[in-house]
């Protein structure tokens, strides 16, 4: 079973050389720490930056330079700044190769719910609806089950949707799963020491698994 950094580390393997990537808040942010050596990646922050760097050194914070999570950050050589409309323009025109974000629920047909729980204070969708509606490749990073022990991989989302038919891949503490074009979750890899049966029990949506589903390999 993976911890959050393990999930981030596994997702980082999906990033290819030359990718422009948008990382959501939470586990997705951690992915930046595990991008393999020699892979050139540009991180987009949807508040208006391409070429996001690491956090600043103490004392070098700049109030004018933050990411979409409102954290102080830095820029890397070759970065560019733009306004919010152009930022979502490049998202909408699919110039961003990969979006990684968290979710409360994902359904068999790739629907995602991650912004609203009825009865709770709604904070807003931020840029999530724009990202999931436009990105050509979306990976969800999340826990396989919620705090109540219920599966977050469902036949149909129960929470208000963020986007429909958009999620392609899910990485959890238990597994890597693809969302099949015809519906259903295809088990691609198991976390070290986790059995297919265990994953099946934690997955309420339809799960497809080949005979010998490999364990994840970390270098």
């Amino acid at each position, binding site marked *: 079973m993976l911890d959050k950094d393990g999930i981030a580390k596994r997702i980082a393997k999906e990033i290819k050389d030359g990718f422009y990537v948008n990382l959501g808040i939470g586990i997705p942010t951690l992915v930046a720490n595990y991008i393999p050596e020699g892979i050139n990646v540009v991180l987009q922050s949807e508040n*208006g930056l391409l070429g996001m760097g690491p956090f600043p050194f*103490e004392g070098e914070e700049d109030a004018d*330079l933050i990411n979409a999570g*409102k954290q102080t*950050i830095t820029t890397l050589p070759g970065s560019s*700044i733009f306004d919010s409309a152009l930022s979502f323009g490049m998202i909408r025109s699919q110039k961003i190769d990969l979006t990684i974000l968290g979710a409360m629920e994902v359904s068999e047909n790739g629907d995602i719910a991650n912004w609203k729980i009825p009865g709770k204070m709604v904070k807003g969708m931020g840029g999530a*609806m724009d990202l999931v*509606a436009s990105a050509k490749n979306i990976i969800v990073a999340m826990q396989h089950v919620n705090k109540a022990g219920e599966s977050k991989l469902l036949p149909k989302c129960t929470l208000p949707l963020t*986007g429909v038919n958009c999620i392609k891949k899910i990485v959890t503490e238990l597994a890597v799963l693809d969302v099949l074009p015809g519906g259903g979750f295809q088990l691609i890899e198991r976390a070290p020491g986790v059995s297919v049966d265990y994953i099946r029990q934690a997955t309420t949506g339809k799960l497809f698994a080949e005979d010998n589903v490999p364990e994840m390999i970390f270098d």
Partner: protein
Amino acid sequence: MINKVVSGADEAISDIENGNTLMLGGFGLCGIPENCITALVKKGVKDLTCISNNAGVDDFGIGLMLQQRQVKKMISSYVGENAEFERQLLSGELEVELIPQGTLATRCMASGYGMPAIFTPAGVGTEVAEGKEVRNFNGKDYLMEYAFDADFAIVKAWKGDTAGNLIFRSTSRNFNPVMAMAGKITIAEVEELVEAGELDPDHIHTPGVFVHRIFQGAGYEKRIEQRTVRTKN
């Protein structure tokens, strides 16, 4: 060149009235028009509709206007950092309309570009789509979203000149340029105001034609919302 300079925030916002719709630039507390917000609180104008990506924090930014119950309605993409906001919302004192961030930005831009409506896939199949026209282009569904109609846009820039030209600094640019284009009246406060001719025409982010009033602000706090750092080793 046409001179857009006013004496300060009080003069700049003097004709904002109860019930007006305001656009306010900024992302979180980054790039917000601090001086104009202070002046709006002082003026005590009420029943405002505020279009702004966020609603500030309890004791800064738009949060200061919320404290004084000056806001009737917020139109935002994310309002999570404000307890007073939550209290007013749950008690029914405050109305909120949540809009996807890209839709918010593009509806501002549409206004500045004289386009009455735009198409975006954001929100298709969700409750955001309720009551909206859905249209299919090349096999993909889009929502038709309308340009905003705001009485005033209030933005914060880094540098500006007397002709109203604006230059923004780093990610404090965010919503400011698209809102600057979209106000019936646009008010810009800047950290440094220079004479027309001192800014390189190629570096200007917002041409002066969009800006009606400009002044050099004072005492910028530029509060950091999430101070995240790493340590040198």
